[in-house]
């Protein structure tokens, strides 16, 4: 290893450029490894954040993917809860509504939830809604700012505006109980939450007892796949998906990013191999005289090969180390770009470091370093001793 370092120091500019090249390609490889699985992991964490492993939505849709709703929510909930493996079921309704601010109206997104079984928010300040609290409302910070209300204030929410009569079909005055972070909101989304019955009234969905979807928590130790199958059979008019299946749907939609990351990651590895192999081949060619001399005084082929491979590995590892730092910085920058997607939940991240992915990237990089050194090492081992020494002497 010291010999490898010494050899690299002989040509500082050449080695420096090679290190820079390996560092940039490693940064790209790292970013692509993080991107390839990061978004899925991030989405999975978001879905499992509140411990609900199953989602039930209108047939043929995914939760919040369309404006379709499920009718007869109470009966459906009872059906789902009757499965012995089901611990809790939380229905929710999402709809667009308005709030008064002076003479004008502010458009908001409304969630109707069951506070006892919800997977949509985390309380940040104030008090949570109690089950059956039909007089309270939770606001997101952007909503509080948009309508100029704080905890304890009374706000007017309007649903089903009718342009013909210039009036709202329903208006409710509610007291702000607290501020919540709605997990699926995009950045700056003004959202409010009430108990389900209030939101159904505002959305004009009470008569048919409609909800957007339901979340289901399965008891610990239960076979999730078997539960999903049972719920599908019990509720044939609904779409039942485990979080794993939702992630698979999501993965299909983001196939472009996965494929892009695979292609760019492979190109990065290819460039690293080419760069290190070229450098090592030329270095070995330059040192053929030295190598022949070493062989002539009894140094074995194995030692020569190990020396060349070590030099290649040192170059790759040193460049890779620099690349990890560079890659972390670029990953943050790229994440800032991609998380600006309109409508994307603010909690989603595209570049998520995972021990398994990082170990895979490190292993691949090390293998690349060794692979890049194979050809020059063979070249060094096969150098004809007498002919090389004769050529050097002349």
């Amino acid at each position: 290893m010291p010999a490898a370092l010494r050899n690299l120091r002989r040509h500082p500019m050449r080695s420096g450029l090679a290190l820079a090249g390996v560092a940039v390609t490693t940064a790209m490889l790292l970013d692509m490894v993080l991107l390839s699985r990061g978004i899925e992991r991030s989405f999975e964490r978001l879905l499992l954040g509140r411990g609900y492993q199953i989602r039930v939505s209108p047939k043929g849709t995914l939760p919040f993917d369309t404006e379709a709703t499920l009718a007869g929510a109470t009966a459906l909930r009872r059906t789902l809860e009757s499965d012995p493996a089901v611990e809790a079921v939380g229905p929710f309704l999402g709809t667009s509504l308005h709030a008064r601010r002076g003479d004008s109206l502010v458009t908001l997104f409304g969630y109707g939830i069951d506070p006892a079984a919800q997977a949509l928010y985390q309380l940040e300040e104030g008090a949570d809604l109690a089950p059956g609290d039909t007089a309270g409302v939770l606001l997101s910070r952007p909503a509080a700012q948009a309508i100029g209300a704080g905890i304890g204030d009374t706000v007017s929410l309007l649903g089903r505006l009718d342009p013909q009569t210039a009036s709202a079909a329903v208006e409710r005055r509610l007291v702000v109980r607290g501020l919540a972070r709605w997990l699926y909101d995009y950045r700056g989304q003004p959202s409010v939450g009430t108990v389900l019955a209030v939101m159904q009234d505002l959305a004009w969905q009470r008569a048919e007892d409609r909800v957007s979807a339901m979340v289901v928590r399965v008891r610990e130790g239960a076979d999730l796949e078997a539960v999903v199958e049972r719920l599908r059979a019990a509720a044939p008019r609904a779409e039942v998906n485990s979080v794993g299946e939702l992630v698979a749907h999501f993965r299909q939609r983001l196939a472009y990013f996965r494929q892009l990351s695979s292609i760019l990651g492979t190109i990065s590895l290819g460039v690293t191999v080419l760069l290190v192999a070229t450098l090592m081949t030329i270095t070995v060619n330059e040192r053929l005289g030295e190598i022949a001399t070493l062989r002539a005084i009894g140094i074995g082929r194995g030692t020569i090969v190990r020396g060349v491979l070590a030099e290649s590995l040192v170059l790759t590892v040193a460049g890779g180390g620099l690349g990890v730092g560079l890659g972390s910085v670029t990953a943050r920058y790229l994440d800032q770009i991609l998380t600006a997607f309109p409508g994307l939940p603010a909690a989603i991240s595209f570049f998520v470091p995972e021990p398994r992915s990082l170990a895979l990237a490190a292993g691949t990089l090390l293998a690349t370093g060794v692979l890049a050194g194979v050809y020059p090492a063979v070249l060094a081992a096969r150098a004809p001793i007498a002919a090389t020494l004769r050529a050097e002497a002349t």
Partner: protein
Amino acid sequence: MMKPAGIAALLLVLGGAQGGSPPEAGPVPPDGSLPPGTRASLPPIALERRLARRLQATVGDTVALSLEPGGPARAALVVAVYEPPSDPARVARREYGLRLHLPDLAALLGAEDRVDRFAVALREGVAPESAAARFNRIAFGFRAVPSVAIANQASQTFVVVSRFHDAIAVISVVASAVFLLCIMLLKVEERRHDAALMRLIGVRRRTIFGALLLEAVLVAAVGSGLGLGLALLASVATNAYYQRFFDTSLVFSLVTPGVVAFSVALSLGLGVAAGALAAWRLVRTRPVVLWGRG
């Protein structure tokens, strides 16, 4: 002129009476028992090509439409199969589309005289922004937005993707530049014995520098040409793959003259600069050192 539009999520099942087979997982029973003579009175619908293929439906078939599984179904007659305009915003969603006359959809939804939106064509000379502002002042319960604003909002996704591509391109260019510099440096350094020999027999530094630079230009030019060919092949492969993957006619990779000019100029410029730097270092070194005896 105003054109109202309605959008809804529907379930379809191909009618059994006129042939075809139901979708793989259609929970709605097919409408297979039409009384004679009723076909002419059925509401006409147009199916998107992918949907028609999925349902194995053709013009003249009947389909049953319902709002939800198990809900009341209504028969409709397929009068056309259409190819929707390629929309990058929808390509990854793989949704199926169909078109009905607005009153038929409203009847199916049970929402008579309700629409999602109106498209408004203004008289020539009327500014869309001022018309939208006027609508917003006089009415309650809707929002008028100029088409340009909607287009800008809808294109945000592609602005983000474009910025991501730009950032990746910058990283790629930096990696390529370092790679190119390194290779050129090695390529020129490989000629150190030749350069030493030429210097020893009296060839001028400028001549050697010029020869090495010319070699670098040739290498950069050939490399650029090969790279361009590779990029064109990759572009064709990318389009073929994604057009098949998403079943769309969208163009995913476009090699424009501007992109070609930029790439070739960059690789030539970098190659020549790297070659010049390496050649300059070489000709400044004493011949005996180059020969390895210094």
